[in-house]
């Protein structure tokens, strides 16, 4: 089942005294159920507008959007019970305690108070739950926001930058929680993040946005495979002589990290042959892997 489906969605913000801003430009996006789906994009690429549009806070100018199989915003009241969301900063009454803020939301949706305590426990806030929200640290506020998003035991959990403000231990815990949720067979996590390492570690699938469009989508492996560099790392005892040999053979060579990087190699075995013929025997020959960061920068046109 597709939990998020967006087809040709466009949104332009009219701004006073400034030219209109096209936040979504014919966006197509599909998120299948299960697992953790990363949503990457540079600032201003349209990630938050996409999420706000799905949640009915922003109206798309064109396009079709479906959430849990239902068209939104028309059917949002029917599906919202299955969707938990934390969008940017948590939004709570500053003078209310963390517990009261959650209880008010729970009453709205008919969620039991037991569930409130369960969620407070899950984000390790139960001991501080009676303190006012405005006295919370940034990390505590973020954790309360995650607890609120989890109250409904949602089928689709939308988290927009959930690690914001968290300390390293908190970030680790959130990642662990997201992994657990994605693996529980019930929840699909849609994780918007600018932390590439986070997405790479946690997500099964990823979509990359830039300028209001989705430029790549699939499993992390698929997205990386599409950007394979075909570069090869070579390590030999006499690197200067080996480099000269390779350049004479028509290869482009760079020095990197104490080794040689041979660019765009069509046949690694050919390299082995050329070097061996000149008496250079390899201590390392390995493909240079493309990480998500490199793929992201290439796809979004932000590579140096």
């Amino acid at each position, binding site marked *: 089942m597709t939990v998020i489906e967006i087809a040709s969605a466009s949104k332009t913000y009219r701004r006073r005294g400034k030219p209109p801003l096209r936040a979504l430009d014919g966006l197509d996006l599909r998120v299948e159920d299960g697992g953790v789906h990363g949503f990457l994009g540079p600032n201003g690429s349209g990630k938050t507008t996409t999420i*706000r549009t799905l949640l009915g806070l922003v109206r798309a100018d064109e396009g079709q959007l479906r959430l849990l199989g239902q068209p939104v915003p028309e059917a949002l009241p029917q599906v919202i019970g299955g969707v938990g969301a934390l969008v940017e900063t948590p939004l709570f*009454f500053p003078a209310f305690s963390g517990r*009261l803020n959650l209880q008010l939301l729970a009453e709205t949706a008919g*969620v039991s108070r037991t569930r409130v305590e369960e969620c407070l426990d899950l984000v390790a806030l139960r001991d501080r739950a009676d303190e006012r929200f405005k006295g919370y640290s940034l990390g505590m506020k973020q954790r309360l926001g995650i607890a609120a998003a989890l109250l409904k035991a949602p089928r689709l959990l939308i988290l927009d930058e959930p690690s914001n403000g968290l300390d390293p231990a908190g970030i680790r815990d959130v990642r662990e929680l997201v992994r657990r949720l994605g693996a529980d067979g019930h929840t699909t996590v849609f994780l918007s993040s600018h932390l590439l390492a986070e997405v790479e570690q946690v997500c099964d699938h990823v979509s990359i946005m830039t300028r209001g469009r989705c430029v790549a989508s699939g499993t992390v492996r698929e997205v990386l495979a599409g950007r394979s560099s075909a570069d090869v790392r070579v390590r030999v005892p006499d690197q200067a002589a080996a480099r000269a040999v390779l350049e004479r053979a028509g290869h482009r060579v760079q020095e990197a990290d104490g080794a040689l990087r041979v660019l765009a190699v069509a046949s690694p075995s050919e390299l082995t042959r050329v070097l061996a013929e000149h008496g250079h025997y390899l201590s390392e020959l390995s493909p240079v892997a493309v990480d998500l960061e490199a793929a992201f920068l290439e796809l979004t046109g932000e590579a140096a």
Partner: protein
Amino acid sequence: MTTTLAPFGTPAAGAGRPAPRPSLLRAEVHRFRSRRFIAVLLLLGTLGFLAAMVVASTQYARPSAAGLAEGQRRLDQAVAEQKAYRDQCLAAGVPSDATPDQYCGAELTAADFGGPEQFIAHEPFTLAEDGLDGALGVAVATAALTFLIGATSIGAEWSSRALVALLFWEPRRLRVMATKLAVLTAAAAVVGLLAEAAWLVAARVLAATRGTADVPHGFWGDLLGTGGRGVLLVVLAALLGFGVAHLVRNTAASLGAGFLYFAVAENAVRNLRPSWQPWLFTENALALVQQGGARVYVDEGFVDESGVYQSTGREVVLSNLHGGLVITAVVLLVVGLGVLLFRRRDLD
């Protein structure tokens, strides 16, 4: 964070019990009752009322025989002085184009001065007159309080953006607004009823201890009507506060807008466009509550060809119905516009 809980997607703990029914209304009542600033405002309002009653108890007194005799003596003296001035005026000669009463004024009697009670240090509290005036005053003061409560009830939600978070739970924006307005209306009505009831008790106590409880036929009906219209004003003021704060999305800004209107705009209208006075909020608020409506003097003076200001004007009677319709129309306009924009606008 702990990781010892049941996995998500499994039934929550306590799932053996039936889950509570979703209730936006119950949550809204809970939210409203939990607002500390609203509780503080109500406490301050109560303290203000009690303080006003203490002050009132020092300003009224049931007159003693000696006091009444002293008042009668001063009254007789005032009547005699006025007669002497009039006689002096008449002796100086009355112009042929005027009558003696037009030129020197009519002869005043003791009744024109309001009786000997007017000449003693502390008047007695008369339930028949002061009861109605007090009901009006309580309504106006409580309306000011509920304007503030209405403004903060929605202004704080905008400031904290908790209103946006609520839409993740109930995306039907009209339903959210209708619920908030219903809770505010009920709360303001309760506050208004309690305030008028408190005044009724206080007025009875003042009449019993500091004056007279004698009332003419039909008084209780008039008092009930004034109190009821007062409660209506209190509710409309709360909705107006809500509407203004919802439009400007901030409590303080709504209070600033209220100050600008009442302190600047209304005074400007009274001075520059007096013929618009029958449409001002304050005049219509008084007209709504006051027994028999309100009388507004519309100054229509002008400077004649010779440069002399000719003072003239007319008195306009604003009925209870007029006041009610004008105030209701203003409230509907402000609240309706806010709700319409909330329904259509993109929210950050």
